[in-house]
């Protein structure tokens, strides 16, 4: 511990801005994650339901015609939030072998749940640098290819299912832990009960992982059935139910 006041004097507004920005971007990304899963899982209702949701986000029902660029725009904003959040969160990760070793020894010795969970939060965050970026880049550059057949072909014939499978676990664990930590960090709601919050965090991850697995299963099933016609766009007449 260095006792010098001057050496550690806080400089300007930036530390506060960065801390708030880290929390705010994390909250926005978690909210997007929940909405995203709700839209994606509409495939469980029917192919037409997912088709309708996809076209809605392309502005078809508001503007009269589909504009996939809107999806690209949303993906660009999410990517920007993602990069900013990652850059800010990186400041908290161990910077070298010494810091990593100090954390690992401490976590192993202490056996404290919230300390160990931070290790999972950091590890899943690190994995998202790669997994999340691949997915977001695909949505950014090929926004028109979202639909019952289009998405299912990407999952199965495009061999994206292994990545989505890992991404699902990683992102839902990270999101659940992040929201949990956020509530405790700012003590909001004020005086929130930690045991209850921890149960909620687990329920969040379990619910979204289950929903994601079932949805991914549906895309795989459609993708296998449609493999011979991969690349073909979905229309109500061409639905797997109609074949």
């Amino acid at each position, binding site marked *: *511990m*260095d*006792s*010098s*006041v001057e050496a*550690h*004097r*806080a*400089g300007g*507004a*930036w*530390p*506060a*801005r*960065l*801390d*708030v920005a880290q929390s705010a971007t994390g909250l926005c990304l978690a909210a997007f994650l929940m909405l995203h899963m709700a839209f994606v899982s509409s495939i469980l209702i029917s192919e037409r339901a997912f088709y309708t949701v996809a076209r809605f986000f392309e502005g078809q029902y508001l503007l009269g015609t589909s504009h996939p660029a809107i999806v690209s725009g949303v993906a660009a904003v999410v990517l920007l939030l993602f990069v900013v959040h990652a850059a800010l969160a990186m*400041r*908290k990760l*161990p910077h070298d072998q010494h*810091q990593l070793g*100090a*954390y690992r*020894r*401490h*976590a192993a*010795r*202490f*056996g*404290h749940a*919230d*300390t160990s969970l*931070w290790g999972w939060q950091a590890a899943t965050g690190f994995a998202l640098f790669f997994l999340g970026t691949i997915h977001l880049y695909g949505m950014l550059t090929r926004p028109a290819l979202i639909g019952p057949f289009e998405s299912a072909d990407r999952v199965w014939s495009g061999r994206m299912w292994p990545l989505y499978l890992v991404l699902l676990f990683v992102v839902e664990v990270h999101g659940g832990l992040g929201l949990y*930590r956020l509530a*405790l*960090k*700012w*003590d909001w709601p004020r*005086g929130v009960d*930690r045991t209850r919050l921890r149960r909620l965090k687990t329920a969040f991850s379990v619910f979204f992982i289950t929903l994601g697995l079932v949805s991914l299963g549906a895309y795989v099933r459609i993708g296998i059935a449609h493999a011979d016609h991969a690349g073909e766009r979905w229309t109500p007449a061409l639905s797997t139910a109609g074949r």
Partner: protein
Amino acid sequence: MSAPTPRRLTIHILRSAPGDDATPHFEAFRIDESEGMTLFIALNEIRANLDPSLQFDFVCRAGICGSCGMLINGRPGLACSTLTHDLGTEFTLAPLPVFAVIGDLSVDTGRWMRAMSERLETWIHATTDADLDAVEPRMEPALAEAIYEADRCIECGCCIAACGTAQMRPDFVGAVGLNKIARFRLDPRDEREDADHYALVGNDDGVFGCMTLLGCHDVCPKGLSLRSQIAYLRRGMAAQGLR
């Protein structure tokens, strides 16, 4: 009816002495447990009967002075407030990490705490000298209670030893430092403004460095609500920084 046979305790103590060539090593001591035995009593028994060279600190024996902090099965706690009855028949004791080791279980928390106090200027800052003969200005009982609550900290160092951030970043002021600023921030006798507090803890060595792992909150021998104190300070410093 005969008295129950006392438990035979095996206590593994991490032995070390700075400057000594021998690497730190665990040494096992076996003693019989007595009724109401605390770790403080057990350590005195070891020193009196088995090894007079064993080093550990104590003053008050009542959880007030904060001298006997140590890792008990990897978890920071006070030797004088820990009953052996609450532990298994075999357990480990080690010095608190982060602080300089004097020998065996004795660490120099004083040097660290002094440096922290000097850096955070943890005393009342007033522009006028106090009139020692005058009656002090009145204070609302609720405010006095809140100040007293934060002031119950005994600087034992357990929160620092339980803090993942402090293990990785030696200049992090930890819960003990942040709790002190939260305490002086409440005190109307201290004329410092939030801008002054921000200059002391508005950075990553201060409140924005806290990753909310909550080891501090969970081990505090005085049961201080460090989680609330740090969140309270974080909200205040974020508002100050964004002003």
